[in-house]
């Protein structure tokens, strides 16, 4: 008999803890992949990486015209321009995490066919990439807020914003992991996710105040539970209005971020062996 105890299966899903360890070993790969794609994403256009900032600016301009000037949704909102800028600049990060994360396995097919690495590296890398692009967007956002006619309220509360953004990134990571597995199996979901994102956009009070339109108590409660609404609310309270966000907002956001990341990791890890057959 041959001593086969030294033979290990070539495709085996390690326990979750070990899986995370292996993922950590590939952190250099994840970072390099994310960095390279930030640059490659805008290659071929004239303005290059400037589009990272230009896109949300133009988005905000569209919403300003439609909701501010045509529909007059700005009534009752103090510093509507600042309100709108925060909404559009910050929401796009989450929706991009969701859509690029969902496609990460499909677009990384060539890498998966060539090298053996924990497949979660692909969705994680897309979120890292989005986070790297998010930096200049946030800087631009603050710069715009400062030059707007209604100046924001400067206070110690600005220090709370990075925490809200960190929770938003964690949430984006969970969403990317969660969306990647089913989308790899049924690519049609890419389209469904687009619709879901838009629906979410309207439900997160990005460009109008929900209080003016929603009177139904249950719907109101639903909006209050929406984590993206909470991200925007916390940021606006801190940056624009100088109000300390309540504990409820932090608890809801934190719970969503933790739950989404845990669920995303477990769901993705359980499908690990099946991503090769794409």
């Amino acid at each position: 008999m041959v001593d086969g105890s030294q033979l290990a299966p070539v495709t085996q899903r390690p326990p979750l803890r070990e899986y995370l360890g292996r993922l950590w070993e590939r952190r250099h790969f994840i970072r390099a992949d994310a960095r390279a794609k930030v640059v490659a994403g805008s290659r071929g256009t004239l303005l290059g990486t400037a589009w990272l900032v230009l896109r949300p600016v133009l988005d905000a301009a569209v919403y300003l015209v439609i909701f501010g000037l045509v529909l007059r949704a700005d009534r009752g909102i103090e510093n509507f321009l600042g309100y709108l800028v925060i909404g559009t600049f910050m929401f796009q990060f989450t929706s991009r995490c969701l859509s690029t994360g969902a496609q990460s396995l499909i677009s990384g097919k060539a890498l998966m066919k060539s090298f053996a690495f924990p497949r979660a590296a692909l969705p994680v890398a897309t979120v890292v990439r989005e986070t790297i692009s998010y930096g200049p967007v946030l800087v631009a956002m603050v710069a715009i807020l400062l030059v707007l006619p209604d100046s924001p309220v400067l206070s110690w509360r600005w220090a709370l914003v990075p925490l809200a953004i960190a929770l938003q990134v964690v949430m984006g990571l969970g969403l990317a992991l969660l969306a990647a597995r089913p989308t790899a199996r049924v690519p049609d979901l890419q389209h469904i996710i687009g619709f879901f994102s838009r629906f979410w956009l309207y439900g997160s009070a990005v460009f109008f105040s929900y209080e003016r339109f929603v009177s139904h108590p249950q719907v109101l409660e639903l909006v209050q539970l929406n984590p993206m609404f909470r991200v925007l609310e916390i940021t606006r309270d801190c940056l624009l209005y100088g109000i300390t966000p309540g504990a409820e907002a932090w608890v809801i956001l934190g719970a969503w971020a933790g739950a989404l990341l845990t669920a995303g990791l477990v769901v993705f890890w359980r499908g690990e062996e099946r991503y090769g057959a794409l």
Partner: protein
Amino acid sequence: MAPSDRFPAEVQVAVDDVHVRYRTASDDATLRRGLPRWQRAANRLVGREPTVLVRALAGVSLVARAGEAVGVVGLNGSGKSTLLRVIAGLETPHRGRVRARSAPVLLGVNAALLPELSGSQNVRLGCLAMGMTPDEAEAAYPQVVEVAGIGPSIHRPMKTYSSGMAARLKFAIAAASDPQILLIDEALATGDAAFRERSEERMNHLRRQAGCVFLVSHAAKTIEETCTRAIWLHRGHVVTDGPAYDVAQAYRWWAWNLAKGQTETAASLLEDAFRQGTDTRVVLAPEDAGSAVPRHARLRSGGSV
């Protein structure tokens, strides 16, 4: 019983009854006619084609030991590349198991890596994806560039490369690691004479280092010259598994008959080969210890690589 009593060299790879199948679209008209009416209508509505089940591997078992160079021959579409991808762990078989002493590394030439990125970025990324640290990747870089030998094109996006250049770069990246178990997929067939020489040199070096090597090629001559043992695959089945010379000769004679249109001769040759071929059955012992026992003792052609 001591391990060395019956088997001279340690097992490097054990493949146990592996099945792989794909469900894929097909525009075969006869298939469409076989479908129920409502499904045909639905397919037409969404512009989808009926799917077929392709059996890429249908029960392949084999054992490879240290110091062996195993050639895999077969026609296009016989499952050679799939077998390598399964051994490399890049694809999970539908049924069956693959066990290996260390992580096998696949040298393929087909994958395109990331077409948007430049060649040098792909080199770095590929090295990191194989698990190197940034320092190791940095150290390996000059060698990869030298083996690839594509000059200043290394700084251009990979989508602008010719297929030959892309294949060379891909080979060079994969060859940068020093694996114990090396899987080579048609690497020698690409590139011009200068590259072939460089890549052969690099491959010989890797083979001396490696515990065992698998080489896929549809050129039986290459197998005959470089391998100690060969496996003939036909439609996902192992036809024969034996000394490289014998298997390659049998395969070439069969393929020659097939090419000349002697289908009957070819069919009977294939049948003969099937009958002479020995089934390998891999028995994985309990307690998760994979023990591999070929059912029939077979004389392997001696000599090292």
